[in-house]
């Protein structure tokens, strides 16, 4: 299927399915606009239906756009890239399946980048529901794509511990106190990756991927601010704005939402072109996002039109 990229106008689409569905959305919006000019409110279920169509269409008939990494994303990428091979990086998967569509692309991109670079990666999660997800993504990305990397040598999965920020409060001075063993019951002392790692102080980079609590904020409060280790983060779009005050002093960079993931992926593919075939879910998701955005913006405009029309009518009375 031909993918059209940013710069070519929408009209140039030849695919019939795309044209029909876009026309459908357009006609529907027009109908609602006419209704709102007569000051009639639209039932919320119709709004729901529109969002569903706007998201479903680009999934069935893909539309993609190009992305360029912004500075705040690029800084994280450059840090991972500039660390010497063999550095120890901690990747915290602090999210659950619900949040996964948004942050899993980042988690995959970080994992691939670190392993490509030859870093040693420590995986962990503060979310009970994150452990099952971590297992899946290790199976898929690490063991699936890098079969020559060894568990306990090149990477290790510490799994989940209950206690939220308490876990951080302890590993900041001692990993073994909180995690006597890894997720499979292997004592940390018998893994070579932990030979030189006692606490978070011995890490070279911490990347927290999350979007709720405990998440990036707790990492900054309990670990980042206490030890002199650079911290990067990938978060769901919803928490990104409130993390801006931590950038660039307390966080070296930040990936916000799918757009952040798409930007990181575009940078990753630029440096490691062979990764493109492994999938760029972030970039692919930008199509549905864009269309849904337009529909939502249309709804804001229509909502305001109907508001002003009804207000004028009230004044006339």
């Amino acid at each position, binding site marked *: 299927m031909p993918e059209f990229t*940013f710069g070519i106008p929408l009209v140039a689409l030849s695919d019939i399915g795309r044209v029909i569905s876009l026309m459908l959305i357009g006609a529907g919006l027009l109908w609602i606009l006419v209704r709102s000019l007569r000051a009639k409110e*639209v039932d*919320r279920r119709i*709004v*729901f239906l*529109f*969002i*569903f169509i706007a*998201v479903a269409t680009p999934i069935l008939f893909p539309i993609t*756009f*190009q992305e360029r990494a*912004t500075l705040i994303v690029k800084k994280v990428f450059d840090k991972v890239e500039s660390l010497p091979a063999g550095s120890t990086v901690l990747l915290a998967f602090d999210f*659950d*399946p*619900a*949040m*996964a*569509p948004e942050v899993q692309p980042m988690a995959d991109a970080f994992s691939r980048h670190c392993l490509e670079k030859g870093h040693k990666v420590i995986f962990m999660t503060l979310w009970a*529901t994150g*452990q*099952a997800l971590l*297992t*899946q993504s290790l*199976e898929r990305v690490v063991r699936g794509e890098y079969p020559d990397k060894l568990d306990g040598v090149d990477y290790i999965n510490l*799994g989940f*511990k*209950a*206690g939220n920020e*308490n*876990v951080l*409060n*302890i590993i900041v*001075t*001692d990993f073994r*106190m909180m995690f006597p063993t890894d*997720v*499979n*019951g292997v004592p940390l002392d018998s893994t070579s990756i932990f030979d030189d790692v006692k606490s978070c102080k011995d890490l070279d980079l911490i990347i927290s991927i999350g979007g709720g609590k405990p998440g990036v904020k707790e990492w900054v409060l309990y670990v980042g601010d206490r030890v002199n280790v650079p911290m990067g983060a990938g978060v769901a779009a919803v928490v990104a*704005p*409130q993390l*801006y*005050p931590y950038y660039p002093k307390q966080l070296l960079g930040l990936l916000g939402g799918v*757009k952040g993931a798409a930007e990181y992926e575009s940078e990753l593919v630029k440096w490691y072109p062979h990764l493109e075939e492994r999938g760029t879910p972030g970039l692919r998701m*930008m199509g549905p*996002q*864009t269309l*849904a*955005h*337009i*529909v*939502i*913006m249309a*709804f*804001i405009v*229509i*909502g*305001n039109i109907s*508001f*002003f029309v009804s207000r004028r009518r009230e004044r006339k009375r």
Partner: protein
Amino acid sequence: MKRQVPLIITFLIGMIMIFSFFIPPLEGLEQTCSLFFDVIAVFAFFLGGGNLMRIHVNKLRRRKKDWGFSIVTLGGFIIMLAAGLLKIGNPGGIAASPTTEGALLQEIFTYVFLPLQSTMYALLAFFVASASYRAFRAKNREATILLIAAFVILLGRTPFGMMLTGWIPESFSVLQVPNMAIWIMNSPNLAGQRAIMIGIGLGVISMSLRLILGIERTYLGDDSA
């Protein structure tokens, strides 16, 4: 006894926690307390489970409205407990991680838990749209400001922002929507977030102090209870 002891506990532990931050030899104590909380939190899960059982068994017994669905809840609870707590259907037996690939728990997680949770979360997409339509109206000055800021960011986060305003020359490039969006994020947004953060920080500090000093004690209830 019912009330004084808890207040003393809160005061002592709170003070230890504050001072262990400044006194290195106490650091270990702080961590032990943290570890204690983790253990208590697990007991709280059990307390929750116990209450859930009680509520739904009661519902069943009294044939309250929708009691049939209580069977669904209890069934789900018991099956998950068998798979999770007793590790039934876990190929690795007792020593294996509860989320081992192929274990019953992992299967339930992937095919039942995950769709439920993610779909519930996905409802947000719909509600964001309906809230945009319903609530984002220029009713007064504050609402208008909010509306404009939201609109600029929305536009700036899509490639269309660049399409619409990409023609603006470099010497006026702040007027390009994506740059405007970045500027809003970096300046007014940061200022607002920081003001909120400082306020909340102080609120938390003073609330913590009130709790430690026993001025705020509503959560403990009444003496005669």
